[in-house]
């Protein structure tokens, strides 16, 4: 279980990194390596060239702006989990982090790495879509911003083009009126999600005026449950509405069957997790 040989380059500035990726489309970025190195140890992944972007200062860190939080792509999970700025302004992220891997993995693993790896069972892709996050990408052709909801194309597949790297994740601050929740079912505590649901929303006079639901682990990439959001928009917060929304969520997902669970099981999980997540999100309403 040793990796195949590769070349390793360690740029210390962003332009340097971008130039390296431009020069070689096959080069792969590594930061924490917590997803990549296991695959390399199995020799499932045999990149010829790795570019370690973990030593580029501007790619790491949490910056608070007036209405949003900017997270550098190579900020580690634990930095985010323990950050007061995150807890106060993006509490859905902090809450979901309880389910992400384990402490020691989170010491090295980065949010950007996790997102770009795009494991369909990963929590953060769902959470960031529920938060309408935006990803800042840079490449030799310049920079661009892409919505989280457009970034995840399929299992392990993202919208990153050749030579592009993820620079930062921008999350709008959650308002104080928002409720939010993250629910997940895994075989053992801390395992990858069999299914996970991220939810946030606000209700005025117990009518829902904003709701975001995203699901992970269930057929393809993490994605928003827009049909369910549409259904809930404007509805009164009642047990029936929540149950119906949960039922609808189960209906709309197209889960896979695999070793962790059958299609029917995942649908059932989506229903109960959605119900619980919505109950918690709108508990105050």
């Amino acid at each position, binding site marked *: *279980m*040793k*990796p*195949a*040989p*590769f*070349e*390793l380059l*360690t740029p210390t500035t962003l332009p340097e990194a971008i130039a390296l990726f431009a020069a070689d489309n096959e080069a792969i970025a*590594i930061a924490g*390596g*917590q997803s990549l*190195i*296991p695959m*390399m*140890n*199995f020799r499932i992944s045999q990149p010829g060239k*790795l570019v*370690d972007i*973990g030593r580029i200062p501007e790619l790491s860190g949490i910056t608070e702006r007036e209405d949003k939080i900017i997270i550098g792509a190579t900020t580690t999970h*634990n930095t985010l989990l323990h950050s007061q700025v995150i807890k106060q302004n993006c509490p859905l992220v902090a809450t979901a982090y309880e389910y992400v*891997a*384990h*402490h*020691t*993995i989170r*010491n*090295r693993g980065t949010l950007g790495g996790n997102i770009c790896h795009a494991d369909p069972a990963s929590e953060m892709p769902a959470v960031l879509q529920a938060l309408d996050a935006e990803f800042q990408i840079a490449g030799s052709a310049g920079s661009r911003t892409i919505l989280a909801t457009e970034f995840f194309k399929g299992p392990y597949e993202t919208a990153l083009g050749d030579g592009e790297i993820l620079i930062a994740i921008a999350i709008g601050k959650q308002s104080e009126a928002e409720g939010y929740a993250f629910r997940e079912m895994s075989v053992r*505590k*801390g395992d990858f999600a069999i299914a996970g649901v991220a939810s946030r929303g606000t209700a005025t006079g117990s009518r829902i005026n904003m709701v975001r639901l995203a699901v992970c682990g269930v057929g393809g990439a993490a994605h928003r449950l827009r049909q369910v959001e549409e259904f809930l928009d404007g509805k009164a917060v009642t047990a029936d509405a929540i149950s119906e929304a949960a039922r609808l969520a189960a209906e709309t997902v197209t889960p896979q069957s695999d070793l962790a669970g059958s299609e029917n099981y995942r649908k059932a999980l989506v229903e109960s997790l959605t119900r619980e997540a919505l109950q918690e999100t709108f508990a105050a309403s």
Partner: protein
Amino acid sequence: MNKIEINLTVNGNRQRANVEPRLLLSDFIRDGLGLKGTHVGCSHGVCGVCTVSMDGKTVRSCLTLAAQADGASIETIEHLGNATELHPIQQAFSEAQGLQCGFCTPGMIAITREFLQHNPTPTREEATEAVSGALCRCTGYEAIVDAILLAAELIANTPIRTEEAADE
């Protein structure tokens, strides 16, 4: 493949080496430096047996390239206590019988050390959560959690000097 020069500190000693990019930190520690106390288990980041401390944080050395440790300070089990004077954490593991075969033990001790540095007075629930990412096949875990709580007590009752001596 071109080798990369790395400069790092391991257990307080400066080390310089030329390593292949693909050399895993676990193998550098064990084979490059002859420090066999860090064990290699699954090599895919699940079991936690290879856990060491890098710049004060636990990392899985099988998921870290030696090259990525350039400039870092690594601490392994060899840095903590010795046969004639065990560190309180080691003492606690022995008293609580938090080990049987000993293979996961260096990793568990690294995790315990980091945990108690941040949370010197843990509850049982917190201590349980602390080892939730590492596997043990022998003990059934209860004695390990006992050991962590006992270690917290022993450290609290020990003069600060012992902790510092271990860091030298």
